[in-house]
């Protein structure tokens, strides 16, 4: 069996970083990354980006050496992706924050509102409902992170955790401050408004969960396969007929429901921010689907049926 030689150069300085000889032809990029780590332990595999061209796309971990357009001496270019952190860690941290922070405001812990309000309770039913909804939402997210989601990537850049936590924790504190404020004003249309909004919230939470389960079932455990999602027997998944990312559609619906229920402008602004971000993600995902699958259903829009 003919062995390959692999030399790894720095993509920016072209400096020779590592020379591997006697590499098996059927070795994967993942295995080469492991070998590279041996000579440069500070660059663990998750922060390595190896490519055939200094400015080209990263090679995938599953790519096999002999299937690449290289001679028996392969030159790979290395780029440091920076310190990495696992997606699971980021999700758990960014979701646990809002859960606890909201409760600090709900229980009116000292130094937030005036001292005469310490540990008092709101007399509005909707405030208690809001706490239940908000807490349920983030508990659901935590459980999904632990038991439902199957991630394509193991890691993301470390700086994302600071960015993401600032966003989630910051907005949670901002919303919670007003909803649990002693001077909170309940919704203009009273119990009717609250009931309708709560119904929207619950339906969309169920919808969002159904989509997460459907997406999970598309992909066997431990794999990174990608398939077109289709509606299942669960009526909530029928939204797949009209949109590529119904999970985002339902998420938007949940927050719109929560905003109407609390009639709180910061919640509406948080929903808007989330909508903008999720639309960007949905458009990207939609584009990838279209690129990868020739037979992608043409009726589907990225996030809002027929519109966006």
């Amino acid at each position, binding site marked *: 069996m003919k062995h390959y030689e692999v030399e790894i150069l720095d993509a920016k300085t072209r400096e020779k970083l590592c020379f591997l000889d006697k590499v098996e032809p059927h070795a994967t990029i993942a295995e080469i990354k492991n070998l590279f780590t041996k000579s440069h332990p500070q660059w663990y595999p998750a922060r390595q980006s190896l490519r055939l061209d200094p400015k080209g796309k990263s090679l995938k971990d599953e790519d096999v050496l002999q299937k690449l357009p290289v001679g028996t001496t392969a030159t790979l270019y290395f780029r440091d992706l*920076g310190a990495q952190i696992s997606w699971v860690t980021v999700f758990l941290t960014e979701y646990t924050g809002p859960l606890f922070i909201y409760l600090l405001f709900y229980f009116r812990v000292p130094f937030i509102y005036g001292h005469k309000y310490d540990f008092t309770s709101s007399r509005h039913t909707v405030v208690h409902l809001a706490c239940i909804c908000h807490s349920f939402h983030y508990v659901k997210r935590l459980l999904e992170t632990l038991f439902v989601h199957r991630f394509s990537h193991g890691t993301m850049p470390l700086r994302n955790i600071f960015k993401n936590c600032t966003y989630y924790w910051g907005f949670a504190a901002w919303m919670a401050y*007003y909803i649990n404020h002693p001077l909170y004003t309940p919704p203009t249309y009273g119990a009717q408004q609250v009931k309708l909004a709560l119904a929207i919230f619950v339906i969309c939470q169920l919808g969002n969960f159904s989509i997460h389960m459907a997406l999970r079932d598309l992909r066997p455990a431990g794999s990174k396969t990608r398939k077109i999602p289709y509606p299942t027997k669960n009526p909530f998944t029928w939204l797949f007929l009209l949109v590529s990312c119904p999970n985002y559609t339902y998420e938007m619906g949940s927050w719109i429901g929560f905003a109407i229920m609390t009639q709180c*402008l910061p919640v509406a602004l948080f929903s808007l921010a989330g909508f903008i971000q999720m639309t960007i993600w949905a458009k990207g995902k939609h584009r990838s689907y279209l690129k990868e699958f020739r037979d992608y259903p043409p009726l589907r829009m990225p996030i809002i049926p027929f519109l966006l």
Partner: protein
Amino acid sequence: MAFSEEDGSNGGASEASEEREAPGRRRRLGWAATAWLTFYNIAMTAGWLVLAITMVRFYMEKGTHKGLYKSIQKTLKFFQTFALLEIVHCLIGIVPTSVLVAGVQVSSRIFMVWLITHSIKPIQNEESVVLFLVAWTVTEITRYSFYTFSLLNHLPYFIKWARYNFFIILYPVGVAGELLTIYAALPHVKKSGMYSIRLPNKYNISFDYYYFLLITMASYIPLFPQLYFYMLRQRRKVLHGEVIVEKDD
């Protein structure tokens, strides 16, 4: 930072500007875009020149800075607000600066002009106002003439020199003027409760302009050094031909 300088962009001039050390990154600007940008930059140079001359004449005639702001405020508001177009230039791609960078810079100028000096009349005669006005005026005249000459493909070295050296002094002077002005405005804002929303209200939101200004002042601490060191790096690249490998590309 209201005291604006853009990243190494040259007002959209396409080729031949000596500062471009990467010829592969040339932009082809259509004739219409070139004509418009040339007109825009000439107009802005002229506007800020008029502003500068009016300020000098006022001081020479009256011997005091009191009333100076009032005498130039219309011109200042006109030309500074007109600069919002620079965001559009970036959006449509005729200027290579990022929309975010241009947006932040123009917004901070608009903030100073409309939300501070225009709205908080008691501080209009503060010395700090003159401080930032002088800094802005010299910077803008230099910057817009730099763009103008670049677009016309005849950039005198002294203008390039000025653009990449004046900021070393003008930047901190401008920032000082702005911060001192906002600081002077604080007691008036607190007393009048202007631009603020109080609880309770049916949208369950509140806003306190006084605290907003405090946070704005605090934000200068991380932002100013970043912008300043960015300009210093640009200066080394453009004037001394240093090749600087950025941390991440």
